[in-house]
């Protein structure tokens, strides 16, 4: 019996969260002769059996193309796909499923908004506003369309704790800004952005806001209506789901006015050489056969997160993060990078005179997986004047023992370089 069923019978609590670890086959293995300690979930989280089995079940029982066939399998595939959309809709509290576009992930979602929503509105008098904290996927798509249109990309500053300077960002908003695009949680530092203030300020100039939710979605309860975000982008593989699937939430009245991003099958109602009638939302933005098994897996991941309870997850991860920060600070030579007051699930750090890659290799040899380098956020590294950092990130399956193994692993690193 899997632990998800057990949770159904009892109210979730932190002890049970720890118990969920058994559901993750990847976590339960030895790496380099040590039990794996996986602290790289910010790069990609692991999948529970419930997700793996749902993908396998779909592939072995229900697979056909969606929205096309008259036959039973096509109905089943369509049902799996649309049920997943419904689950995501409820998970982030969107108004309806027309607001949920399946994409290949956060990067694809952001590129969709850049090309379909922003680009037609841009010229040399217009601006896109981002922050210094962004992941490359929330920088480069904007650079590309600014280059193509002559528009300007403006960048709000961050402070020494790695937090966006909210007031400064707000002062940069005016009616020449076509979109504000900011992360909910920084991938490199874990800082949580003050979205409510920023979104209110942007809306007072009628400027819409895109939120890059890749790092927030599995750590915080996301409610797109409460946030009043115009777009919210996220990936399946950072929320216990598979790679190659993600979603873009967009307010229906905005999505409705946007032209299609890519042309192909499924996004049309009628094709004639004299002109084509595009399909309705959300299909208008889903050209070609989609990643159906990915959607099935993502739907199962949403179920899993719901059963564990987002508030329980948040509490569990915060307890671990606080312990990790305390323990790291006790090690000589360790410096925490990213010390924002409001922070989730991620800690970047450096060790004096030891490069992050050497830390990564020596930890890996003890079965401990962390991320090292620039974390696809080179401007953040430049701000702190570092070539890179080591980053340990948490998920629902981590426990206190992981933190203990991690910190004693770091003592070993220091010993080798002594």
């Amino acid at each position, binding site marked *: 019996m899997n632990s998800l069923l057990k949770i159904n019978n009892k109210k979730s609590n932190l002890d049970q969260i720890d118990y969920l670890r058994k559901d993750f086959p990847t976590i339960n293995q030895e790496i380099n002769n040590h039990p794996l300690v996986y602290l790289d979930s910010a790069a990609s989280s692991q999948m529970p059996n419930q997700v793996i089995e749902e993908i396998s079940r779909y592939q072995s029982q229900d697979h056909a193309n969606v929205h096309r066939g008259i036959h039973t399998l096509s109905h089943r595939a369509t049902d799996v796909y649309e049920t997943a959309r419904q689950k995501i809709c409820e998970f982030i509290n969107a108004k309806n499923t027309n607001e949920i576009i399946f994409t290949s992930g956060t990067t694809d979602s952001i590129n969709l908004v850049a090309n379909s929503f922003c680009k037609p509105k841009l010229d040399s008098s217009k601006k896109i506003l981002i922050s210094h904290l962004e992941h490359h996927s929330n920088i480069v798509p904007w650079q590309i369309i600014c280059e193509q249109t002559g528009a300007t990309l403006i960048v709000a500053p961050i402070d020494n704790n790695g937090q966006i300077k909210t007031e400064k960002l707000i002062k940069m908003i005016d009616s020449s800004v076509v979109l504000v695009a900011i992360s909910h949680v920084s991938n490199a530092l874990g800082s949580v952005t003050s979205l409510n203030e920023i979104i209110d300020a942007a809306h007072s100039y009628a400027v819409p806001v895109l939120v890059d939710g890749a790092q927030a979605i599995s750590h915080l309860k996301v409610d797109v209506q409460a946030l009043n975000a115009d777009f919210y982008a996220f990936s399946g593989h950072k929320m216990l789901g598979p790679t190659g699937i993600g979603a873009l939430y967009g307010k229906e009245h905005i999505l409705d006015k946007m032209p299609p991003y890519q042309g192909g099958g499924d996004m049309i109602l009628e094709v004639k050489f004299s002109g084509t009638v595009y399909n309705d939302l959300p299909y208008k933005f889903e050209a070609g056969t989609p990643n159906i098994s990915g959607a099935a897996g993502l739907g199962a991941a949403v179920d899993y997160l719901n059963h564990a309870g987002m508030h329980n997850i948040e509490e569990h991860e915060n307890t671990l993060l606080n312990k990790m920060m305390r323990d790291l600070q006790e090690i000589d030579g360790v410096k925490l990078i990213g010390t924002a007051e409001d922070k989730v699930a991620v800690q970047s750090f450096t060790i004096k005179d030891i490069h992050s890659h050497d830390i990564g290799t020596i930890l890996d040899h*003890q079965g401990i997986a962390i991320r090292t380098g620039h974390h696809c956020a080179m401007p953040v590294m430049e701000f702190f004047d570092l070539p890179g950092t080591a980053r340990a990130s948490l998920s629902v399956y981590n426990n206190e023992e992981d933190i203990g193994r991690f910190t004693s692993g770091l003592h070993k690193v220091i010993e080798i370089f002594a």
Partner: protein
Amino acid sequence: MKKSIPENKSLKELYRKLIINHAKHPLNFGKPENESLFAEGINPLCGDKIRVYLNIDENNIIDKLHFEGTGCAISIASASLMTSTLTNINKKKATQYVFSLINNLSQTNPSKIDQSIINSQEIEALEGVKNFPSRIKCATLSWQTFLSALQNNNKITTTER
């Protein structure tokens, strides 16, 4: 509390004392005043950045070889060892040696680095990377950049080509 973890043989092979010493106190580090040839190498996967400066005298001997940059212990130690190994070596011989060394390090087979071209026992310390496929490029970056500097190639050399 310190918790002791058993030493691992291949990890010890990778981080030999010699490597750690070169990483901490690299030789010929810094931009010289009158270098004639230059190239920059980057490893886009990790952000390591090495600049190699060299000078060749009228007899085709590499009479000056310096580097600067940022990188892990393996890449800095490897660059340091490179400068000490190739200084005062004939350009043609050095090129031949570098190709042979990159070729050797890039293979995970246990064959030894060819010492018949240049005899440098210290270079053997780099062989530890062979057990760490993800770190081989750290060791080869500076040597590739050296080849590029010989061409006075102002283009950036990357490990991903």
